[in-house]
């Protein structure tokens, strides 16, 4: 599986990708990823490309990503150069995350939403690698999607 995670400095792209990598490793898959740093922290774009269970290099060829995860919706045009299938959080979901959990747990809340909607990883594997507060936040996000009857087939992609 080839994933691209995109966002801006401070949005938690690196955190998000680290958790995804850990879940994949927990599932016994090999993980290769890129991590574009440097100027990124100065308000630029943070971009992680990740190959799970395949490949020799961490780089993803434009157009071949299975899923592009956008933490910043305005990166859609750029994200589409990697692959057609885009995952983004809705405005309501982001607002809900900020309302439901303290700022530092917003990312795990969103991770819960992501896992519930895509089903690409087992939520229990994710819970295993998180501390208690993050677990709570992840479950809240996960439950929010279930309460909305949201499922993978209905999201825009």
């Amino acid at each position, binding site marked *: 599986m080839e994933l691209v995670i995109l966002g801006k400095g401070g949005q938690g792209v690196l955190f998000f990708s680290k958790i995804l990598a850990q879940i994949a490793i927990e599932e016994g898959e*090999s993980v290769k*990823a890129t991590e574009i740093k*440097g100027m990124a922290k100065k308000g630029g774009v943070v971009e992680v490309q990740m190959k799970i269970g395949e490949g020799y290099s*961490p*780089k993803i*060829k434009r157009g071949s990503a299975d899923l592009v995860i956008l933490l910043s919706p305005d990166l859609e045009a750029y994200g589409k150069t990697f692959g057609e299938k885009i995952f983004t959080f809705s405005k309501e979901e982001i607002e809900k995350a900020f309302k439901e959990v303290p700022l530092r747990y917003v990312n795990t809340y969103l991770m819960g939403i992501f896992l519930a909607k895509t089903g690409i990883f087992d939520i229990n594997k994710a819970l295993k690698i998180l501390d208690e507060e993050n677990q709570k936040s992840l479950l809240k996000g996960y439950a929010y999607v279930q309460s909305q009857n949201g499922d993978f087939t209905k999201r825009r992609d």
Partner: protein
Amino acid sequence: MSERIYLSGNEAIAYGLIASGVRFLTGYPGTPSSEILPTAQKLKLRYKFKGFIDWAVNEKVALEMAFSASLCKIKSAVTMKQVGLNVAMDAFVNSAYIGPKAGFVVVVADDPGPYSSQTEQDSRIAAYFAKVPVFDPSSVEEAYHFAKKALELSEEFEIPVLLRTTTALSHGKADISIDNLKIEDQFQPNFKEELKNWEKEVSKLAATPKQRYLLHKALNEKLKAISERNKIRYFYEGDILILSSGMVFSYLRELIEEYNLQQKVTLGKVDIPYPLKKENFSKFKRIITVEETAPVIELFLNTEGRRNGIVPSEGELSPEVCENILAKIGLISEKKTVIIPPLKRPSLCPGCGHRIGLFAVKKVFGKKAIYTGDIGCYTLALNFGVTDTVFCMGAGVSFATGMKKVFDLSGKERMVIGIVGDSTFLHSGIPPLIDAYHYRVPILLIILDNETVGMTGNQKTPAHTKSYEGEPLNSVKIENIVKGIGIEFVKVVDSYEYKKTLAVLKGAKSYLLENKKPAVVILKHPCIYTKEGLEKNPKKPVKIVEEKCTGCKYCIVEFECPALIWDKDKEKVLIDKTLCINCGCCIYVCPKKAIIEVKDGACNTW
């Protein structure tokens, strides 16, 4: 015993070096090499072995210190980015002639692209120039193993070995299998044992030109022996041979499998691009080298590649570019070029002391003045017109000196202001300031002192008073260095004290015009990107008085804080509270006084 861990290429290199016994590691930060040394420091804290692992003032000093440690039979290594190797080149070339007495590895990170460098130079060429063998790993796992192999080769032949990495590898991550480090038993006694019987060897360590000739001859023999055992590894079984090294090899391997070219192509993997021996390739129809970023294997083995336009001569050989190369060879059909939309340019962080400081400089000296910038975060001041030249480390000072001298010779008065960061000043800004003083060149040098190497991830500078292990260190005071040179006008001011900064800069301006001698202003403010810097930063929440904002965009264009954003609907400026750190600096910027401090915390956000 081994374990699987998720590491970056840089982390893997640090693990490899420490696991093979490197106990003296130094370097100078530079993207994409910066994470190697801090990883080794973490390992030292974890395993508590004896050794020295810390930053040097520049790459030349770093290489010399590490090499001298190897002469004392302590396994050593040095890390830097590719342009850093230029700084260290004299020492690097020399180290090959003298040869280390224990393993000595020079880790250099190249930046094809370039992503964050001045040049796309290929350190494998530098290795050839210096007559130093070079390893070019193709994956994170290989980065770990080649770090170990490089040290072994160095140890065996008493020759420096270059370990070359690139941005894609250094910042690439993978879960890899590494040996458990057993540091205490294996390496702890080394220092005492090795240094007990250390003896002088003047004919080598202080060789005369005549002895140098003999050393050169011995070096050539070592290289010949290494080339003899340097074997190319072959994958697949086609009659077109593609040779490669580094990360590019991995992209090619993926593409060959993706397009099922296993019967058409043989992929030759070169682990050590220099020194190579001639190979018999008669069974292949064509031989093409695809390598980053210069022809090295191609020239040595006389193959196709850049010489006949198959491989581009500039830019990173990304998977897409490699795909095009396969198309050019005729193995696959032409691919459509993907047009990549431009991304937002990077800016100084919201609340950065450099921004308000350089805004004040612009206010006093105007846009007519020439601003010779340097390498660091503050290069980004070119976004708001306070940097006109960026060249190489320390050139902000020498460019100011040279340009001012020329303007003086022309008889035309033009203010020239050098801008340099604290770490860059210590790295290579001091010598040109000595010339500016000596030749009475009336430049103003702004030293932006945030007491950290900000751009590369907040590494320690010589101003720090404690090491990463908590050991006391002597703090180097920049103003003392400047005064020590003899410069009379030396002022230090916190750039957050805007009005005071303006007064100091105005004073410097009059001094320059009256005395015709250089002046130095040190603008101090801790980096807010560090945890301590942000915590201690003054808090002054601001808001925009909507009725007063005329939408002139002066603050956005001239101050360029990412937290000041344009509201298209209202045609006014807004504050992005997710980015704003409440520094309050923009209060001084708005010509209409529309940005004001708020006491109650209420403000317009988005």
